[in-house]
């Protein structure tokens, strides 16, 4: 994966670059909006990590400029702690995701993977999803596993849809809060954990074809297209 990281804070750039390089990705770095624009027009990146506050321009202006030029490279916006309007402004400008600094590297890489996947999928997202023997129809709002219909609560349905669209990839708790619940704050209650546990109960328990939803300790969740051993 080819990543451009734009941030005037050297520490952040180095941390991100080291982690990504160690994971086998190519990384380019920029300190200012101007050099970022130059790099983005010279080379096609898979994803751009862009700080909201750059010394010469706002990150949101950079995204707007990229989109205006027809560059649809997925952009992950980095925002500061406590910045309430960051999400709205970033998304309005055309960013695809946002992340509050500082972040765990796992959080960043999970989001970059999701963005890269979305960016590479050029066709319009299909309304019927298949993962392993699980089928979800976003139009009729029905879920089946191996032909057995599964009744889900509305939020459980959205949660499963998100997991299926990002199958075989790590999905963090914050990603779920942002994308499934549309919360830009972190509730102190175990709202994600509880819903995952109920969803797992309905989707995984009692099916001979194995367990699909996996918990990655301390990092997040994963919906496998190759199920683990069945749980009966």
């Amino acid at each position, binding site marked *: 994966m080819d990543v451009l990281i734009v941030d005037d804070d050297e520490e952040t750039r180095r941390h991100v670059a080291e982690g990504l390089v160690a994971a086998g990705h190519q990384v380019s770095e920029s300190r200012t909006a101007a050099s970022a624009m130059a790099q983005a027009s010279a080379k096609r990146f898979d994803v751009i990590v862009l700080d909201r506050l750059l010394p010469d321009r706002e990150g949101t202006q950079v995204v707007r400029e990229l989109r205006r030029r027809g560059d649809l490279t997925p952009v992950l916006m980095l925002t500061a702690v406590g910045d309430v309007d960051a999400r*709205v402004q970033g998304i309005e400008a055309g960013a695809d995701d946002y992340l509050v600094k500082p972040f765990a590297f796992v959080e960043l890489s999970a989001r970059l993977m999701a963005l890269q996947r979305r960016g590479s999928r050029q066709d319009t997202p299909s309304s019927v999803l298949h993962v392993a023997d699980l089928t979800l129809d976003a139009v009729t709002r029905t879920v089946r596993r191996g032909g057995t219909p599964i009744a889900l609560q509305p939020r459980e349905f959205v949660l499963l849809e998100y997991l299926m669209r990002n199958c075989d990839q790590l999905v963090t708790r914050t990603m779920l809060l942002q994308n499934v619940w549309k*919360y830009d704050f*972190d509730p*102190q209650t175990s709202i994600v954990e509880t819903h995952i546990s109920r969803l797992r109960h309905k989707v995984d328990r009692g099916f001979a074809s194995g367990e699909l939803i996996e918990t990655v300790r301390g990092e997040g969740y994963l919906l496998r297209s190759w199920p683990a051993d069945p749980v009966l």
Partner: protein
Amino acid sequence: MKASERKGAVLWRSGAFRLAAFHAAIFAVLVALLFGVTWWSVRGYVEQQLHAAASDELSELAGSVATAAPGSIASPDPDGVEHFGLFDHAGLRLAGDIALQPTATGDMRVAVLRAGGQGHRMRLLHVVQTRLSDGRQLVVGTDRHEADELLEQLGRAFLIACVIGVLAALVAGFISSRRYLRRVEAIAAVASEILDGRLETRLTVGARNDEIDQLSATLNATWQRIQSLLEGMRQVSTDIAHELRTPLAHLRFRLESAREAMSPENPARVAMDRSIADVDHVLAVFGALLRIAQIQSGQRRAGFWRLDLSQLVSAVVADVRPVVEDEGRQLRIDIRGGVSVVGDPTLLTQLLVNLIENALRHTPRGTALTVALHAEDGAAVLIVEDAGPGIPDDQRERVLQRLVRLDASRGSPGAGLGLALVKAITDLHQVELMLSDANPGLRITIRFSQRDLTEQ
């Protein structure tokens, strides 16, 4: 009826009335004093005149009686002012219309013969008498009736003047002090607005530059000072959080890099993990502080629109229901449909989530938690009620402040800021936030009476 009674009672206790009554009382005392002095001197003069008239009459009569025969002395007009009597040394009446010889001089009731000698009547006379050289006693009495009437008339006139004066003083005093005190009431109204948290409210200072204007100016300056001090305090914590964001971010990045560089068996990894968790805790607190500060700055209001609060509350309740039930509480809901408000959906969602989290944190397992929404007089009313220990009366204001926790538990990050964030969100939406006793438990009522908010 009740309202007018209450108003009457308020009028009775009002400063304007008291001031007016005080002035009227002073006026009454002054009038009484003036009356006393006048009456006393008029009365003295009248007495003197009476005595002089009687004495003149006496000496005149004494001259004529000494030379005339008793029978030739003419009887005075019985209805007139002057009366006299001539008595021998044994007290027998020789002439005049005074029937019996009075024993002394001065004011006394004396029997005066009627015209034609048919009986007598009692008159209050001022009596003087003298013994003539032949031993007979001459008595002259002046009727006090007219003089007394004059004094009485004078008293009545003073009383009427006094009553009218006191009433006029009351009314005038009331009107003038009312005008004055209305300005004091305006000051009190602004002061209570400031007490309610609208710190930017100020008094209008008039051009007269009288005492009230000077007071208003001083109060405005005082409130300006309080506002800047409060903002300064708020700013300090925000500034600290802001300033420490970057070094903390660097710290977290380095800790994470260091941990990644360790072998999985390295026991120091546990310490690393704990350090990262601590940094995350600090960042969560700072994040909440900065979020509150940003909400308080009011910029977010630009993103308000009319939204279906019934839908929003139902969605949040559906999301938290499994959590609430897994934590061993009953969730009761009473949500009426079609209730809409003007606001920011994300913030209102956080508000409700925070209230429910707060209730979960402070109540024992097995208790019930109620979320209710209805419209009252066109205003949406959202109620979150728990059946826990509640909050003592005097502590309720305190829990809305930042970093205040009544119990000493410092377990979860961000706790102690939850209700402060709720307060910041309700302030931004200009809605009422009330904490009350649910007997037992805490009831939090949010009333959306947003008159000033324009729809956008």
